[in-house]
């Protein structure tokens, strides 16, 4: 992929400290439009914190994050922050009454549109992710895979340029994970959406076409472009995180 065009996500020397603990340290990263990026690492490596910094959900202690050239937190960014779709692990409890269609409509909460316009967009997004038949189903009673399809539909109604997915396959079986990633790759190919996916699951690294970033102790330690089952690229430093050991064992 040519990187002559400006990055859609630019992270410059970002550090995040929470309650005195260094969660991220000196992160530098450029992600270009249309890339498929997988960020991996063990629990506590800082993956979710990095995603939340990109979303503006967590303020950075040092450095800056830019999305589509706009500094995260700036007034201009606030107006277009819905350009980034976000899926996280947390799901509502079974006692929370909300239908799948209502969850998708959350993506349009800040838009001033007619009921018909909203319904049409919700329907189109649910068709695109293959969950239209779940429209009136209670969200909390859906399976893990169905919930993730609904969550992606919620992002799609925002018509995003970027999808940030935080452990979206954590609750899926291997078949469900494969199906989910195929759907994401299809959406990426058909809509040109930049995808950043966070996972601790080593098996996902066998998919071709993904750029692989590995984090350890709040730092990016590996940046590879995957081609089939063989990762290419170099490690930015000599440290070998525990995670890579698991990866090697898995292969």
């Amino acid at each position: 992929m040519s990187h002559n065009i400006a990055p859609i996500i630019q992270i410059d020397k970002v550090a995040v400290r929470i309650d005195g603990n260094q969660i991220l340290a000196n992160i530098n990263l450029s992600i270009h439009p249309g890339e498929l990026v997988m960020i991996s690492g063990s629990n506590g490596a800082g993956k979710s914190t990095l995603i939340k910094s990109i979303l503006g959900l967590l303020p950075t202690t040092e450095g800056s994050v830019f999305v589509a050239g706009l500094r995260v937190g700036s007034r201009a960014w606030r107006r277009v922050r819905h350009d980034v779709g976000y899926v996280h692990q947390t799901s509502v409890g079974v006692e929370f009454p909300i239908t799948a269609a209502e969850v998708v409509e959350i993506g349009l909460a800040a838009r001033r549109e007619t009921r018909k316009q909203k319904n049409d967009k919700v329907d189109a997004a649910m068709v695109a992710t293959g969950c239209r038949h779940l429209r009136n189903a209670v969200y909390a009673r859906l399976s893990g895979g169905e919930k993730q399809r609904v969550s992606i539909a919620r992002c799609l109604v925002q018509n995003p340029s970027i999808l940030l997915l935080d452990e979206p396959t954590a609750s899926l079986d291997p078949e469900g994970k494969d199906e989910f990633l195929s759907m994401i790759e299809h959406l990426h190919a058909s809509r040109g959406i930049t995808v950043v996916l966070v996972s601790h699951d080593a098996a996902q690294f066998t998919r071709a076409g993904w750029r692989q970033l590995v984090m350890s102790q709040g730092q990016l330690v590996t940046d590879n472009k995957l081609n089939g089952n063989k990762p290419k690229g170099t490690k930015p430093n000599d440290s070998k995180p525990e995670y890579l050991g698991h990866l090697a064992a898995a292969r």
Partner: protein
Amino acid sequence: MSFTEILALLQYPPIMRGALVLLAAGTFFPLIGVFVIRLNLITLRFAVMHSALLGAAIGLAAGLSPLPVMMGVNVLLILGIAVLGKKVGPNLGHITTFFMVLTIGLAFAVLYRFNVPANDSLGLLWGNVFALTRFDAIVTIGFALFIMVLVLVLFPKLAAVLYDRELAFTAGVPSGLIHTGILFAVGLTITLTMGLIGALLLDAVLILPALIAGVTSRSLRGLFVQAMAFGFLISLVGFVFAIGIDIPASSGVTIVGALVLGFVSLVSHIQRRHA
């Protein structure tokens, strides 16, 4: 007492005013109750009540009208909770509990130190729906209608914040502002109406219908609509029941609400077991 006799009682203005206020509060206050339940703000309800008592005590001690002081103290309380909430995250339980305990401690200190008769300040919190003036009734009904309009206009944003504050934020909703607004709406509802209709009745119309709708509804829209429907039903039946057996309206509504909650919970439990 027969149904005809109950209808005859409505010819008396205080009874009619009380019935209208009860039905308006019963129908629209459950909308606020939905937020109290879903955002886990039960302790906020107690903190607001205690700080209202503190406000009343300060007002009486200073020789001022208690209601504005109660409102002022509660505004400070909500601001404090909102500001501290930003520091410690979305779970407000610890903060509201802290204020709940602090304000009641301060209230009793003020009552003792300035020789304010406790009954005078406590009396401001135990309103009676049949003792309302015409102005009280207009204020309560107007405020109830205002809540409904607010929920209707802001529904998509409120729904997003109820579902998940982070996702609401990423969808472009000013979720922090909306959440603080919800805290103020809850605080204002409790402060304004507790002194008019009483703490027990306020709880009955605020909390019980929202709890019942949480059991029976399958959608977020359904949750709000059913909370209003149950609120109306409970208020109406509770009012008639209270007059019929000559007990306070607040007791009647609370008993009917609790019975309905028990019934729907039991039915829901049986349905889940047989599903």
